[in-house]
């Protein structure tokens, strides 16, 4: 695991892992995965310089009171790209991170070499209401998110100390600030998706129970030219459940856009 770096972006402290070499790739994690360096990132780092920040209030990044809307997070990461001096980068986001990535893409596609969304939340899909994770305890949460329960171990809290519980509470609060109501979507995002001009890959777990495949179709229809790849043994987090396969698909897609494949 690379040594985490700390930097300050427009007054907001960011905790960030940087690893690998090659074209820059910004990876935005999902809720509960902040501060983790997992096989998926490891694989990407073989081909790209991976920048993996923790969202404010998640992982090692302190909470930021000014973040009240998902677009605040999108602007925060555009500021981070500036701070890092990255004119253009690949952008990969999972779940909550996918939502933020999609928001960024509607604002600033020219900054993106490519866009990869892994089971993103963020839009309202006709006929589907996201199950309310905030009311779930672990025995409900794990089968909701994971097709392979073993994969959940990668995100298990390290102990049940007050510090760890406070950190979980802080992460949930950071998510609730942007996603309690409307729950996990921005009503304005869906109609802005056609503005995305970056080459886009959608990765989806076929057994996702939080954001099922029917949602993938809505995303694929709205983003011009988007390609969809599904993963047969995964739930909501294929990059944890079939890490190697998802990483291979992402690497392949991004390298094509760079013309290095």
């Amino acid at each position: 695991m690379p040594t985490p770096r700390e930097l300050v972006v427009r007054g907001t402290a960011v905790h960030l892992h940087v690893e690998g070499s090659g074209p820059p790739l910004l990876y935005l994690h999902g809720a509960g995965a902040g501060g983790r360096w997992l096989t998926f990132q490891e694989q990407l780092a073989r081909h790209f310089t991976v920048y993996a920040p923790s969202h404010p209030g998640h992982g090692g990044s302190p909470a930021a009171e000014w973040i009240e809307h998902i677009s605040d997070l999108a602007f925060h990461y555009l500021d981070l790209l500036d701070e890092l001096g990255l004119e253009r980068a690949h952008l990969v986001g999972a779940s909550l991170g996918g939502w933020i990535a999609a928001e960024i893409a509607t604002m600033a596609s020219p900054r993106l070499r490519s866009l990869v969304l892994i089971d993103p939340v963020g839009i309202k899909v006709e006929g589907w209401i996201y199950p309310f994770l905030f009311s779930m305890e672990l025995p409900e949460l794990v089968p909701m998110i994971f097709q392979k329960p073993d994969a959940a171990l990668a995100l298990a809290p390290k102990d049940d100390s007050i510090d760890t519980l406070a950190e979980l509470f802080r992460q949930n609060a950071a998510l609730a600030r942007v996603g309690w109501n409307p729950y996990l979507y921005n009503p304005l995002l869906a109609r802005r998706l056609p503005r995305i001009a970056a080459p886009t890959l959608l990765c989806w777990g076929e057994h996702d129970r939080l954001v099922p495949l029917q949602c993938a179709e809505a995303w694929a229809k709205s983003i011009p030219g988007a390609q969809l790849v599904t993963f047969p043994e995964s739930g909501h987090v294929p990059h944890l459940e079939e890490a190697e396969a998802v990483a291979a698909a992402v690497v392949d897609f991004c390298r094509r856009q760079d013309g290095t494949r």
Partner: protein
Amino acid sequence: MKFYYFHLMPYVMDHDEPSSWVTLSNRHYDPEIGHGLYHQYLDQLEYAEKLGWDGICVNEHHQNCYGTMPSPNVMAAMLVRRTSRAKIAILGNGLPLRENPLRIAEEIAMLDVVSRGRVISGFVRGIGAEYYSLGVNPTHSRERFYEAAELILRAWTETGPFPFDGKYYRYPFVNPWPRPLQKPHPPVWCPSQGSTETVEWAAKRRFPYLMVFTPVKRIAQIYGEYREACERHGYTASPYQLTVNLPIVVAENDAKAYAIARDNVLWVYNIGLRMKTPFYMPPGYLTEPSLRRVLANRPKPPTELTFEDLEEGGYIIVGSPATVRDKLRVFADELKAGIVCSGMNGGSHEKTLEMMELFAREVLPHFREDAHIDETAGVGR
């Protein structure tokens, strides 16, 4: 000491579901039974005035069997015209839960005018579960509470119209008709469970602090913090700023009282307050220092409390009239609480009325030294 009769208006039932709040299906609610219960409960509140209680209390909770009063102002409205002397304490309106809290300023002012100034207006955030039931973002709870309180207090005290431009609530014209009858406004109480921030906020404004269903040790601690905060703000707290809400069970002897309490009071804690952990503590509902304080000395969850815990911990007062008097003396003399709010449950409507009569006959008269004092004078505003 002043006595207020408090009602939760529960829908008492047994069930195997994991939570009595938010998700307990309302298919369990039978409106025919509910009709009977509402009338019994309102009768009890009205009877409390007749028997000499100083005030009667209603409160707000949503989507549960613990308390079926989603709108306390509706209940207060029913009581206002059926009573003539008792204070009517609304404990309280969940300010952040309202999308339009100017409605609270209006409704309380209506009740205050109709009752000729008998209304006490509790301001609460609502417990965690309400944020699930009403979809309000719990991370906004504290800010919305403060902002709605400011709006309501200004709406009651400033000559309208004036604009209000808050972060959550915005109005081009704040100008409610009617204005409240009590001056400068109806007393405001803060029912709470002891968060540092609320203690400070209430003490600063001389708003009475009400501890609800809390063990007596913790009441003593929070009262101490509240008194200290009052001193810091340059005044000494009146006893009528220190209020407690706990169930009382009185019977002709201790053994009978204990038996009644086991049968009827335990339900409130073991079933009425059964809920999933997330409902207790929605994300962002507590500040991180308050959260750490809670985690550092985690009390037993209500569902695990035994009758002995309740009795020994001082969550409830149970006994013969003499025992109940002695236990109330602890609140009066040691904790120096000025007002006790309590509900009673004898097991049936008739037995509850009998218990109220016994209390009014054998307990109340022993605490009437301050009968001539208006507990709301100079307090709560």
